[in-house]
């Protein structure tokens, strides 16, 4: 039509196909979003950006121990909420906000009911098992202590409404176990480095 009789072309004849095309694209994208979960790369990388085959080490040591950036490499009684926040950042924040779209508080309030404080013990029992019932959720990658901290943090979020800022405004804190100094010490201790390499690495900060 457009080629053979351009003068007969009306605006709606162009607008309708364009809108329809975007509609089809939208449907396709939405379906793809649903069928990919809990993975980003099926069978390899979960939505939380952790590789499936690394789950044994994370579930043994916790995700915090292996995180490059965290203020709480180890969980103690006094840093429980902050550790929980860091666990949330590493394992949940790819898909859940704290109080906004798909908020973690909202998700749990819908499950347990609104109007009462969330119970950390219930959440700590639910989180390690949620992927069995809700198959779009990746399994929780941390260890038991981290589940506890996370549950305490979620209740704290519900009660205090504290927002969670990102690296672009808060910056990052480097985990002391994963600094250049720590890694070069590890290399030297492993005895892998040749003498000249050792000298070079020792000057790294």
């Amino acid at each position, binding site marked *: 039509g457009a080629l053979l009789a351009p003068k007969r072309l009306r605006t709606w004849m162009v607008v309708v196909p364009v809108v329809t095309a975007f509609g089809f694209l939208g449907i396709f994208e939405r379906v793809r979003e649903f069928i990919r979960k809990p993975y980003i790369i099926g069978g390899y990388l979960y939505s939380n950006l952790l590789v499936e085959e690394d789950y044994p080490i994370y579930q043994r040591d916790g995700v915090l121990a292996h995180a490059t950036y965290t203020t709480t490499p180890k969980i103690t009684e006094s840093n429980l909420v902050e550790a929980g926040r860091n666990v949330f950042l590493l394992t949940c924040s790819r898909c859940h906000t704290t109080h906004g779209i798909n908020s973690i508080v909202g998700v749990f309030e819908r*499950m347990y009911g609104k109007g009462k404080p969330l119970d950390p013990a*219930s959440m700590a029992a639910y989180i390690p098992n949620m992927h069995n019932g809700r198959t779009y959720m990746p399994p929780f990658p941390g260890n038991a202590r981290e589940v506890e901290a996370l549950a305490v943090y979620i209740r704290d979020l519900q009660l205090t409404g504290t927002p969670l800022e990102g690296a672009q405004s808060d910056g990052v804190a480097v985990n002391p176990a994963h600094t*250049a100094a720590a890694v*070069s010490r590890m290399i030297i201790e492993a005895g892998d480095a040749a003498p000249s390499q050792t000298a070079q*690495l020792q000057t790294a900060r």
Partner: protein
Amino acid sequence: MTPVPKDIPLPLPLPEWLLVALLVISFLAHIVFVNLMLGGSLLTLWSQIKGLRDPRYDALAHELAKTITVNKSLAVVLGVAPLLSINTLYTIYFYTANVLTGSMWIAIIPLVTAAFLLTYLHKYTWGALERNKPLHIAINALAVAMFLFIPLIFLANVNLMLFPEKWGAIKGFLSALMLPNVFPRYLHFLLASMAVTGLFIFWYFGRYRYPFEERLKGLRRADIRRKGYSLALAASIGQFLIGPFVLLTLPSKGMGWNLLLVIFSGAALALPAMWWMWKAITGPDEGLDRHFGKVVGLMTVVVLFMGSGRHVYRANALEPHRRLMAARTEEFKRKADEARAELAAGRLAAAGPTEHPGAAIFKRNCSSCHNTEGRLVGPPVTEMHEIYASDKQALIAWIKAPGKKRPDYPQMPGFPQLSDEELDLITQYILEIEH
């Protein structure tokens, strides 16, 4: 403290030397068109402002404006290859810098989109806004402001990616922008834009097929071409001041004899080109074209040297850190292998259950929402006992595909993935065991 992240433990999809060559060459192609886009829009603005008093320059501005949209399309399309290459070669470095500059990095997309739309608007409303030059010029000025700002976002990022020792110290885009040596590099880029655009103007308005006399009445072809050539020469002279400034303000960790060799060779090769430009500008009109091919050829080589030097600096700067990152990645893989082996061994060694086999399956799949007594998320086992005591099959059907009977409870997810044997064990556990 310098962070050492884990690297992606996968091999490169192409040999590294090939990816590097692709990166450097495709980046140079991209940046030349970015230069033309920026330089072209600046010159259009200058020409249109000059055209308020001298209408001949308004016509020139219109002609220049027609080239911006073409060059910007090429710039964007050619940006894909270097973006993919750098993400493959320097994944962790590039991605970290992007995250640390956060929304400003993402803002490139809406800013570029807005700038493009403004250039199209500017180009196509030349006639309609004939009587409202201030508004018309303002549209271009806004696009120019964006074109001047957007490179700063890129520069802040490609600079930040080179300095892991700074990643823990900065907070967002503005602090990244202040790191050395973003602003010297920016000045270097601006001058390069003017140089490339000057050469473009010389060529564009010199084309045999271009109807100069018809479109630009009152202007002389040779005059405009001379202006373009002069701009290129002046900008190149400026580079001999800004270039050393960039070199001296570069953080020393990337310095090396290989870098200095490449940069000085490139700079030296620009000198004959500038000499030829000078001869053409100060010579007669008939001699304008004489050395142009050689000038362009030589300046292309200069650009290749500079682009390579840029990569040499990056490689020098990141070499020690890449080795640290490889060591950490290796160590993590070793420990992850250990943990996998432990887990496999642990599974095999697990003692047989002394409790009902359905209890373990129930614990894994159901106990997160169902307690023995009292409501957790769903009703307790005691209620299930009451409802389904006489109809085990109905319970199995419900578990596979639950309906919704209680309006004030959330919808239970289905468990179609459980085998008949597992369902049998669970329902046994629920209905037959004393709780």
